[in-house]
């Protein structure tokens, strides 16, 4: 019976051109916005590659299009739902259904099913848009699936509310207007108003629940809320329609009101239960809603409760709900560490608290663990996880940069200095200092790691001997070597059994990123703690090839292979660069290596990178350079369990379309499909009318 009624609804709908026109229109608008987003994504793609933690194609293109589709459905559904019952009353056809031996429940479910089938066609058309992207790369299918599921659920909510309002009256236009109005209110309930107390409003807002799905998050409370919403309104519809011809007047209104109250009470208590037992699953393949493994490891190693007090006004100057942004960010940590307690304090209400805590930024939090406190005003995963590392780490680590020979300075702000990297290390709890051989005597000591960063003045023989003694004593070393002369450090290279090849690595692929060819792109990574799970591109300017000679002393692992389509340019680097098979070594070229050996039952660690530029202020922000540098230092200072947060690289980072494919996709989405839908509608209408 349900099927019969649903089928009749579909024949009614698709028999007339209106439904087809609506489908074509909605699809056209969505396709247009989709293609616009695709176009701008293809344009900014090279820049995105250089931003750490950049969104993938699915997040940048598909999720916003689905959010837009939800709004289009919100507008389209009242048009379709209003006629379901009110329209039949208006045309006096309801008598056919009511005098037939059909339960009101079946009528309601049949109508609902019919409308949902139509809406599903819209959803399938919307899902067809991301499917086109598969022609040019990969997609985060989990995220697409979450979005489609969310769209389906909110469409069901729209349809059930529309159906109920349609049951109440005899005028379709009134029902449509009421549905649209109510849906808009329910949709935007979330937008903060004057009151500031938005707890309940957020819990009731359809948009707030849809947003979870939009981010690829399955939230048990959202799932329960949306389902209860549908069930309540279908129940009410069926009760209202069932009362038709049985009860009348005030008696019916009273009975219906009582049932409505009861249904809402039951739904509210179930909803409350669902809210209290809320769990969330991240179904996006990129795991953008989950913590990286490194953060999870840090949390696992923190035994005992963790407290955070967030000083934030209920909304910021732009009226954004900052607390919610912070709460959602911290929720990822709370999912991994249930005894992470978060409280919010309004600094305007408790200025004394805020002052005592030393709060300066508009939004800042104090995290406490075992009587240690740290402040944080950046709300991103690396920042918070590093703070947690500092809280968890018992001692201090000292990194010393060799000074006195024109090396890059850890506190210098010039482009060729490493001030930015130095402060990043400091922010992670390292003490960073300059070590001057001339100011001390004997074997260098007093730090956990020595960094030699591109000296520009010849080291004296005695100085080099002391560096060699440091190595012999088992000290850890990071050596950044530029192309060009070694300034007296040749014995060091011999000690490490390295051959440092002359010439600069040239990489034509850099041009794709609008970089000079002298920037070698690191893509292949060795199996090593430093580069474990590493997916970002690293960028090494003016790199030189590092070759490890056969030897018994050092165990070596090549870390980075760069310039896969490039070569080592032995000619003049300033002249036009071109591959010369006679002299140049073809890529890929090894530009970084990790060395270890066992000395007095302890592992000595050394890393050599054939580019001094990659950690400078100029290039630190390029691709994964910062992460790579931090990983190196962590490993060299034996902080393996606290390796940097390797923000997972997204699997749908790159899309590549050739012009013809793009043209075919645009033509199909913008012209062929909508026109096909329109034509189908017109042809079917014409055929049916002609008989």
């Amino acid at each position: 019976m349900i099927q019969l009624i649903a089928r009749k609804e579909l024949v009614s709908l698709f028999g007339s051109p209106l439904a087809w026109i609506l489908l074509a229109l909605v699809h056209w608008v969505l396709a247009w916005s989709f293609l616009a987003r695709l176009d701008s994504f293809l344009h900014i793609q090279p820049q995105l590659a250089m931003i750490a933690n950049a969104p993938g194609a699915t997040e940048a293109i598909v999720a916003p299009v689905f959010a837009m589709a939800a709004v289009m459905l919100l507008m389209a559904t009242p048009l379709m739902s209003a006629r379901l019952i009110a329209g039949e009353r208006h045309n006096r056809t309801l008598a056919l259904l009511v005098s037939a031996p059909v339960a009101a429940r079946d009528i309601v479910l049949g109508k609902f099913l019919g409308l949902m089938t139509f809406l599903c066609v819209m959803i399938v058309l919307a899902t067809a848009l991301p499917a086109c992207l598969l022609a040019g790369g990969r997609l985060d299918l989990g995220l697409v699936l979450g979005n489609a599921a969310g769209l389906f659920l909110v469409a069901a909510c729209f349809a059930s509310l529309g159906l109920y309002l349609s049951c109440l009256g005899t005028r379709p236009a009134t029902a449509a207007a009421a549905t649209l109005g109510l849906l808009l209110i329910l949709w935007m309930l979330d937008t903060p108003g004057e009151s500031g107390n938005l707890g309940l409003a957020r819990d009731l807002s359809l948009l707030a629940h849809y947003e979870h799905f939009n981010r690829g998050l399955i939230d048990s409370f959202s799932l329960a809320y949306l389902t209860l919403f549908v069930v309540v309104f279908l129940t009410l519809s069926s009760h209202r329609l069932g009362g038709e011809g049985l009860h009348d007047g005030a008696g019916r209104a009273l009975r219906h009101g009582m049932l409505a109250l009861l249904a809402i009470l039951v739904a509210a208590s179930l909803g409350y239960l669902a809210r209290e037992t809320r769990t969330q699953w991240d179904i996006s393949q990129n795991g953008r809603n989950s913590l990286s493994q490194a953060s999870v490891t840090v949390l696992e190693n923190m035994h005992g409760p963790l407290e955070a007090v967030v000083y934030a006004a209920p909304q910021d100057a732009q009226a954004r709900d900052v607390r919610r942004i912070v709460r959602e960010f911290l929720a990822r940590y709370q999912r991994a560490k249930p005894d992470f307690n978060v409280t919010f304090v309004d600094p305007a209400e408790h200025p004394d608290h805020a002052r005592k805590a030393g709060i300066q930024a508009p939004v800042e939090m104090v995290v406490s663990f075992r009587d240690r406190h740290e402040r944080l005003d950046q709300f991103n995963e690396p920042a918070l996880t590093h703070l947690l590392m500092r809280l968890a780490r018992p001692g201090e680590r000292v990194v010393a940069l060799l000074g006195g020979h024109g090396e890059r300075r850890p506190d210098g702000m010039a482009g060729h200095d490493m001030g930015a990297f130095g402060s990043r290390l400091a922010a992670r709890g390292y003490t960073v200092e300059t070590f001057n051989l001339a100011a001390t005597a004997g074997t260098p000591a007093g730090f956990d790691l020595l960094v030699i960063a591109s000296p520009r003045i010849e080291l004296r023989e005695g100085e080099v001997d002391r560096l060699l003694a440091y190595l012999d004593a088992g000290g850890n070393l990071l050596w950044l070597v530029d192309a060009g002369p070694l300034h007296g450090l040749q014995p060091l290279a011999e000690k490490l059994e390295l051959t440092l090849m002359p010439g600069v690595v040239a990489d034509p692929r850099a041009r794709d990123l609008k970089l000079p060819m002298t920037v070698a792109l690191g893509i292949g990574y060795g199996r090593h703690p430093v580069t474990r799970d590493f997916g970002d591109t690293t960028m090494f300017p003016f790199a030189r090839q590092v070759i490890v000679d056969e030897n018994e002393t050092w165990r070596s692992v090549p870390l980075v292979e760069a310039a896969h389509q490039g070569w080592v340019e032995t000619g003049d680097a300033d002249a036009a660069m071109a591959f010369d098979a006679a002299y140049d070594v073809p890529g890929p070229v090894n530009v970084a290596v990790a060395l270890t050996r066992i000395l007095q039952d302890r592992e000595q660690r050394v890393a050599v990178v054939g580019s001094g530029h990659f950690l400078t202020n100029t290039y630190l922000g390029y691709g994964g350079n910062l992460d790579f540098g931090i990983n190196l230092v962590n490993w060299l200072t034996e902080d393996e369990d606290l390796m940097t947060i390797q923000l997972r690289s997204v699997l749908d980072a790159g899309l590549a379309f050739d012009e013809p494919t793009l043209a075919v996709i645009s033509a199909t989405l913008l012209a062929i499909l909508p026109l096909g839908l329109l034509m189908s509608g017109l042809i079917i209408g014409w055929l049916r009318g002609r008989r």
Partner: protein
Amino acid sequence: MTRTPALLATNLVRDFGACSAVRGVSLVLAQGEVLGLLGPNGAGKTTLMRMLTGNLAPGSGSVEICGIDLRDRPLEAKAHLGYLPDVPPLYPELAVGEYLRFAAGLRRVPAAAIPAALDRVMRKCGLEGTGRRLIGALSQGYRQRLGIAQAILHEPDVIVLDEPTVGLDPAQIRTMRALIRELGTRHGVILSTHLLAEVESVCDRVQIMHRGSMVHQDTLAGLRRRGLSLEALFMQATTGGGDTEDAADEPAALS
């Protein structure tokens, strides 16, 4: 008769705000009988029929169809019912065949029996060859016949027809009346009308309604036996109260 009546209504009352449309009407319909509800416009015939078919809740009183209480077991009671409202419940965007198949499905006609039922009913109602036409494109006469077709296609025990011959031309009226008489041999039929001639030509029994009340009832045979004319009876019953709402319509009703 010991057999349960096809339809039994007791003391039905219905008010619309201050206006009482039906005030305490009872009626019995035996199987194999055609009952005519005669009354001027506004007498409450349509309101009464909507209550009989479960489309309108009675203020008080009860309805039984084949002995089944309409309020307590509405689905079972409605299974014995066919109803043509005063406005035929047609979907203009559907084709005639689609519509009748839908109606048959709603009335729980087994899928296997639907084609035969459709054939039969379309032949009876003079709808042959219209199966693929859109209802919206049909003329008034066809629509009225389609409305009757949906009411009888599942061979219900009780057929309620609200002014079934409105909008038909004289020839169609004649065939329609013949059809109703034929239905009356096997089913219980109630039809409402304001046309005396209609009652005289098809009904076994007549109940005259006026301003919401049943003012007279008799069998046609009994009237003939007593030499009473329906017309005189109707005039007497409906003008007795004086200020009939639709007094102006009455001369037309007598044509």
